[in-house]
């Protein structure tokens, strides 16, 4: 595979993490404009783990994901009393705070005679794990998709479990959930933490794939795109956001002749899609219909001679 294709595919994979993160909050009924903050925190924390402290990559990804997840839980607890647009804007404010602070923070240590670490507005350079271990882009791409598959399987499994049902209950009517005995506070914080952790994994991978990160990448555009992916693909299943990412990054990257008019075409298409399907391609009703269809087929197959 040529490097260009590998890069495009890897980007799709890494952006999918933040799309899944926004999706997880969407099904619990929260619209976050700020998941890019946890992507960024994951990138910085994991980058620091390998470049500054020379930890192994898997530990670094775990560190990135946990730092992001814990921070998301703290923010989740602080913003518990907020709902709707107030919640959305508070996440936006937090994410911009993180980005602007990262533009100021300079923490560097000497590794092999060179200064390494976050360097304010210059970003965080020389996260050279891939070069040091001689990992090719293609190998790293498989790592990305391996982790993405794990997260996706976990999410699909969660959706079939009691926790998934609890999240959907929160999302469709949190007063009713509370009246039925559900501790909504606890689950809102849990959802925030999980979503932050997923975004953190994506960030950790991103830092090592591009070998440098700069705060400018984690601006609000990334967060709102993540939100849009979930809604385009549909809120009925965790596959939805991936479809959204694939349509934007994959499809439009492939159709070269609209270069330069990309957003004009894409924007118009999505606007029309949302008029026809306000909860995305694979919304709850369509997912339900597909499931019924499949289970009927299975039953028919089982009964067959």
């Amino acid at each position, binding site marked *: 595979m040529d490097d260009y294709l590998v890069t495009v595919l890897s980007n799709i994979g890494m952006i999918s993490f933040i799309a899944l993160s926004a999706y997880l909050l969407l099904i619990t009924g929260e619209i976050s404009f700020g998941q890019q903050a946890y992507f960024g925190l994951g990138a910085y924390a994991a980058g620091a783990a390998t470049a500054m402290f020379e930890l192994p990559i898997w530990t670094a990804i775990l560190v990135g994901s946990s730092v992001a997840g814990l921070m998301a839980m703290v923010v989740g607890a602080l913003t518990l009393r907020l709902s709707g647009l107030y919640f959305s804007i508070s996440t936006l404010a937090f994410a911009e705070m993180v980005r602007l602070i990262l533009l100021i923070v300079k923490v560097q240590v000497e590794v092999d005679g060179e200064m390494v670490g976050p360097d304010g507005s210059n970003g965080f350079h020389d996260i050279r794990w891939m070069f040091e271990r001689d990992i090719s882009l293609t190998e790293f791409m498989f790592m990305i998709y391996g982790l993405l598959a794990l997260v996706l399987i976990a999410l699909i499994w969660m959706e*079939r479990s009691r926790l998934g*049902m609890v999240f959907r209950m929160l999302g469709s009517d949190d007063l009713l959930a*509370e*009246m039925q005995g559900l501790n909504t506070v606890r689950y809102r914080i849990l959802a925030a933490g999980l979503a932050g952790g997923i975004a953190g994994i994506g960030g950790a991978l991103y830092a090592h794939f591009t070998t440098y990160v700069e705060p400018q990448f984690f601006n609000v555009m990334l967060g709102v795109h993540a939100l849009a992916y979930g809604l385009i693909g549909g809120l009925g299943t965790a596959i939805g956001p991936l479809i959204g990412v694939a349509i934007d990054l994959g499809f439009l990257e492939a159709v070269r002749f609209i270069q330069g008019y990309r957003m004009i075409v894409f924007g118009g298409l999505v606007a029309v899609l949302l008029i026809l399907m306000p909860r995305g391609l694979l919304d709850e009703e369509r997912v339900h219909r597909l499931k019924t269809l499949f289970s009927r087929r299975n039953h028919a197959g089982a009964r067959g001679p």
Partner: protein
Amino acid sequence: MLALEGLEKRFDALVALAGIDLEVATGEVLGIIGPNGSGKTTLLNTVTGVYPPSGGRVSFRGTDITGWKGHRIARLGIARTFQNIRLFPTMTVFQNVRAAQHSRESGSLFDRPASSSVSARSVEFVLEQVGLLEEREVLANHLPLPARRRLEVARLLAVDAHLVLLDEPAGGMTPAETADMARLIREVVAPGRTCVVIEHKLALITSVCTRLCVLDLGCKIADGIPDEVLANSRVRDLYLGASDDTGS
């Protein structure tokens, strides 16, 4: 079972409940009637912890639950329905009942909802009781209104509630559907449970309630055996005279 002492609820300047004293004995079916805005739904909301009371005390089976959060009150064994029906619209009938059980369980979060066949069978049992077994895989927002009300009732039956609060269970129903709902409450809900029923339709009240209480402007103005309360001239003037939505 449930005891309210001087229960008050104010929304800024508006007094919705002006000091209500009420005791509900175990096993009785208490009807609450009153004109619109008399504080019936506010009473339910205050008891179930939608919002905290502004004054007074609520105790349930000897425990003071004043100011508790809704989910703790629910777990103690109070279940309710809603005047403007609340269901999880994108879940199936089966899942809606299952969700009610889930919220109260403290078992593992990662169990599959349909994995335990015992509880699946118990859901099917209550769906059969309310006559929704055929519709078990239908999405809740595709059900007609009477079926939605019955689904709310199924949700109560599926959990272990000592006290059930029904907020206009026959709201928007035809006389025939109301009679069905009355039979369901009398034969399935009431046995083994203490009930409080808010309703405008006297047909339902007279056929299910063992006791009746009348609210007006946030005060209790009558309380007793249904026939006697309805014969009370003050109640007749205030409630029956002023409202034609009696369904009788």
